[in-house]
């Protein structure tokens, strides 16, 4: 144990649970058979909602993100001032996407469920850990609704994309962790 205390700088586990589990068969009706009112009764308010031409899309989501990291000081091995860091993230997610037409009828629905590796890494770093070897910030960030008004007041290069930004509810929606290098976000010059 003494050796463990001397060698191990720390082992940390973060577990994030966002929302509640979804049921794959919650919506099993044929398109056109289900009204908006019935959908809201079954699933409650959607977590994401946006207008699209001829109707709108609504999404419900449930995420479980697990982040594990270990830091080992190499001082006990005679290598003073160096630490060995390792980290890994695991994600389990469910996403239900419904498309409604302007007559409040269900047009299509799709459900996806996946689990897998969300990244990780390792590093040998001097004195202090300057590099985070695992990062799940984009997966656990707050809902975009909180920034609705503020998004329009972003610095000009980003604000000019507000008409197409997926956070404002009139240009589609995007899932957590969507890469920004391609697609709509790539128009947001930084």
């Amino acid at each position, binding site marked *: 144990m003494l050796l*463990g205390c001397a060698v191990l700088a*720390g082992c940390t586990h973060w577990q994030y649970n966002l929302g509640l589990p979804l049921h794959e068969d919650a919506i099993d009706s044929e398109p056109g058979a289900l009204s908006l009112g019935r959908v809201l009764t079954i699933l409650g308010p959607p977590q994401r*909602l946006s207008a699209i031409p001829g109707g709108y899309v609504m999404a419900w989501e449930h995420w479980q993100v697990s982040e594990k990291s270990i830091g080992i000081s190499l001082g006990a091995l005679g290598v003073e001032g160096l630490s060995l860091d390792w980290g890994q993230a695991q994600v389990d997610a469910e996403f239900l996407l419904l498309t409604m037409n302007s007559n409040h009828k269900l047009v299509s629905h799709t459900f996806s469920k996946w689990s897998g590796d969300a990244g990780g890494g390792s590093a040998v770093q001097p004195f202090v850990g300057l590099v985070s070897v695992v990062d799940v910030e984009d997966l656990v960030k*707050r809902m975009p609704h909180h920034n609705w008004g503020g998004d329009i007041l972003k610095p000009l290069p980003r604000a000019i994309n507000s008409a197409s930004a997926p956070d404002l509810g009139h240009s589609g929606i995007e899932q957590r962790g969507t890469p920004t290098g391609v697609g709509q976000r790539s128009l947001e010059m930084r």
Partner: protein
Amino acid sequence: MFKGLSLSLLLVITLGGCAQYENRRGVEVSWQTQVTDTLVPGQTTRGDVLKQLGPPSQVISLGDETVLYYLFERSAGTGLILIVYNDFQVDTRYDRAVFFFDNEDKLTDYSTRIGEPTGD
């Protein structure tokens, strides 16, 4: 040897700790049942809802329709800190309400959720 072991054990026990924290974001939850029971699709107007619930988190334009979206996000976390091993858990729940209005500002559909139970 025994003394060293006892000392390290004492150190771990002494330096151990725990944490509890909460993060709240969003609008005040005012869509309780006694409020929403007064809403009547086809009669209640957007002004009535705004008057009762205040400014929403998001206003969405759906062509001729509009949507008022109210969201209150609550994260509760607990942590066990033992220096050599630390464990944290964060549970986030979404209290929310959504109201659809037609081109005459009349309520057509709505749905609310408050205080979702923790897990199935």
